[in-house]
């Protein structure tokens, strides 16, 4: 076998391996999380899932004393109620995306062991009124009217 043939053979192996990785990539195996409607279509009790969706506004319940967290994840079509013990990450909030790791409990809810917050690709400057900051603080120290309040007539 000449060096050139070895090279061709080696190259083919590498290309085949890369091709397989890409092919397996576009099929189901790299789905990072399932959506609530996908989970509800065929839930398997005690199987480990990663579940992703939006935290339904109005569904979030947080008990600081017992560290118990409950909320509903939605993808617009299906809704799954999730329970967790522990504090969520800072960006976790109603109306935002989240991915949770855990398993489907027989009683019909998702028991999460890890909560991950998704954040959007939008980057906004804070609104003038929403972020008081140090300038606002200085203004109040100087007893000037706040900029976000209308002056009395």
């Amino acid at each position, binding site marked *: 076998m000449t060096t050139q043939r070895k090279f061709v053979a080696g190259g083919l192996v*590498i290309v085949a391996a890369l091709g397989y990785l890409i092919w397996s990539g*576009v099929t189901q195996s790299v*789905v990072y999380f399932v959506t609530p409607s996908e989970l509800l279509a065929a839930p398997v009790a005690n199987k480990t899932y990663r579940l992703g969706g939006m935290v339904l506004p109005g569904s979030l319940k947080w008990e600081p004393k017992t560290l118990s967290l409950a909320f509903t994840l939605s993808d617009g079509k299906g809704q799954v109620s999730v329970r967790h013990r522990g504090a969520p990450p800072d*960006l976790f909030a109603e109306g935002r995306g989240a991915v949770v790791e855990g398993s489907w409990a027989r009683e019909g809810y998702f028991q999460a062991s890890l909560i*991950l917050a998704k*954040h959007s690709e939008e*980057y906004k400057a804070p609104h003038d009124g929403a*972020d008081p900051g140090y300038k606002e603080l200085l203004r109040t120290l100087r007893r000037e009217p706040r900029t976000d309040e209308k002056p009395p007539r």
Partner: protein
Amino acid sequence: MTRALGWLAALALVIGLGAAFGYAPREAVQGNVQRIMYLHVPAVLTAYLAFALVFAGSLGYLFTRRLGWDRLAVAAAEPGVLFTGLTIVSGSIWGKPTWGTWWTWDARLTSTAVLFLVYVGYLLLRGMVDEPDRRARYAAVVGILGAANIPIVHFSVKWWRALHQPSTILGPEPSPIAAPIALTLLVNWIAFTLLFLYFLARRAEIARLEESHAG
């Protein structure tokens, strides 16, 4: 010439750092931690540029068999690995307070880890072969095949479900980004590109000196 480029890069980095902490506003949702973006995004865009040059140098060498192309490839690959490492470390530090984890095996993070390992492998391969023409030929094959991963990394957030958010810049359609944040990002991107070009020029010079001493 190279020295002037170095000073220009240093100046741009100082301006970029000043803009990142002094000019850019505190981001509305994420707060101050979003400022990591001004390191994270320029680092990965520079890494893309570096590996594109490795690809160009590898193709150029295989077609012409001139070692100048190989010097371009190695001079781009080393800072490319550095900037990919910076991307992963800064992304990890950004991920902990926002996502709630240092690392997760989603499509973007996994493909970026593969990108890093492929070019570390590229440098290891170069270190194992002493004869310059053979080294250039072997490396060129890896340099060309490895480039296939660059679009996979970039479009991973579009093709597959991931924890990582989609692209804000270089995305299919422009996403909402406040003008001062975009401008700060642009300044840092230019600064990182200048720094990379300085590294590239210096490393290519070293490679040329090594060859003239060996041969």
